[in-house]
Every structure is written in C-alpha cells, then in structure tokens.
C-alpha cells in the first residue's frame, strides 16, 4: 500500500525558508498572500492490504525518524493500491 507522508513545521516554529519564500512572493506582487509554509513529502510503500495497519506503521516511522515531533507535525494519507 502506498502512503504519502507530509511533514511541516508546527505553527510558531521559526522557518527561515518559508519566510524567504513569503518575501519573494510578496515582492513579485502577490498582494493577497497571507501565509507560506514549507514542508517535505515522503512516499513509502508498505507490504499490507490493511489500511489501519498501514496508517499505524507510517505513524511509527514518523515518530521514530521522519519527523522531529518537537517542532514538526505530520499527516498520513493512504493511497489505494493502483
């Protein structure tokens, strides 16, 4: 089963890259810009047909390595096998 994991900085955590993107977009004239966040997307495939198990395993991966949960949050999206 294919799983998409998205990792982002938690609100309030300093993110100089997102700030720089925000500034650059503003200077390009995007006056309606309200906020920018930047994160990572990691795609993993897990050998299971059980969605709940896949979600459980992906969360384990995030907690043990993929996200620094002190400053990052993660979301897990289960993609149906194609």
């Amino acid at each position: 089963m294919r799983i998409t994991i998205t990792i982002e900085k938690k609100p309030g955590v300093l993110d100089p890259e997102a700030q720089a993107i925000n500034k650059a977009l503003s200077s390009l004239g995007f006056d309606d810009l309200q906020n920018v966040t930047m994160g990572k997307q990691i795609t993993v495939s897990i050998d299971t047909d059980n969605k709940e198990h896949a979600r459980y395993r992906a969360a384990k991966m995030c907690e043990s390595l993929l996200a620094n949960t002190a400053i990052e949050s993660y979301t897990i999206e289960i993609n149906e096998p194609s």
Partner: protein
Amino acid sequence: MRVAIIVFPGSNCDRDMMVAIETLTGRRPALIWHKQTNLQPVDLAVIPGGFSFGDYLRCGALAAHAPIMNALLDHAARGGAILGVCNGFQILIEAGMLPGFLTRNKELKFVCKQTSLAINSDASCEFIKSLDSSEKLQIPVAHNEGNFFADPVTLDNIESNGQVVLRYVNEDKKNSGNPNGSLNDIAGICSSNGKILGMMPHPERAMGAGHESADGKKLLQSIFEAIEA
C-alpha cells in the same frame, strides 16, 4: 585522558579534532566508526563536525539512529562527558541528548567566519570553569543550520537552569555578533547535568599556529581540566 571521536559517513572534522586533542593531551583519541556498537570506557566522547549522511532528512537525524548511539546514550547515562561540535551538536539534539533545535541560518546562507563568544559564568557546565569569563573567545563557525530555536517554555528552562554556555557577542559594535539568527544569541548549550556540551563554533579550528586564534585550545584545555578534576 581517554577520548573517543565518533565518525559517521560525512564527518569531516574528525581528524582535525584528533590532532587538536592529541596535541593537548599527548594521547591520540580513538576514532570510532558509527557502526560499532561498543564504546570502550572513555573520559570524553566527541562528535565532530561535518555533514553526516549528507545532512539528509534533517541535519543529524540519521546519525542520531546509528548503531553507536546506544553506547553513547549509556555513556551519558553513566554521567560521561560528551562534546558535540557543529554537526555533532545537531546530532546530540536529534538524539534527544540536548534540548531545542538547530534550523537554517536566518539569512539562508552558509556562514564561515570568526565569531566572538561570551562565556556564561553562571552556566551549570564544569567545562568552562577554568576560563576567564571576562574574556571573549574567538572561535570560527562554519555551518548552514546553526540557528538555535526552542519553544518559549524550553528556552526559559534552558536559561534558568544555566544551560546556555556560550553566546555570540558583538565585539566591534558595528555588526551583530550573531551569525545565524540564533535565539538569545546562543552558540552552545549543555545538558541539565552539565556533562554534555553542544556548540556550533569549531574549537579544533582555533588551535594557535596557523590558525587565527588559539582560543579553541583554551576551551578544550578547560574541558580536559574539568574532566580530570
């Protein structure tokens, strides 16, 4: 003085650190490859600077899970002394051995320059006790992710527990002394027991002859004196 230097793929200050320590102690530190699972009894374990595992995922995140780390955690649990420099500081944070987080430099540029450091004489870290805190240390930094960040509660705890050991200071009053936007100008912090020191500046690059400064030598000497005391 028995010293071990932990080496990861991508470490690049391990040999400089080895030479610096051998010069001071007369005894060559052991270089310990990260795949080893045992750490012989040592007085000090050093995690050197570099780009362990190519800085992939987050700086220090992959190294923090290397096989040697369990032995290092045991060493820390026994009250053993640890010094982490630059990437070594990032690894100690990722391993949960020091609080906070090191993120991208404020200006999004790699910074490689001499810095002036104030020693916090109130710090609960024995390693700096033989240094004159009225003097500033001149020690260079070289990093892309040295911008120390912590949530307000953590930062407050670090400050009130005396865990801030080194701060960037403005020597000439013309420029900000802080090269990376680090909160409270933090350049180095210690663990709550004062035995683990993480710092972004490279003392092994300030060893006198051939270097701009000899203050790194002073700092390392002070660490050895504290351990031997």
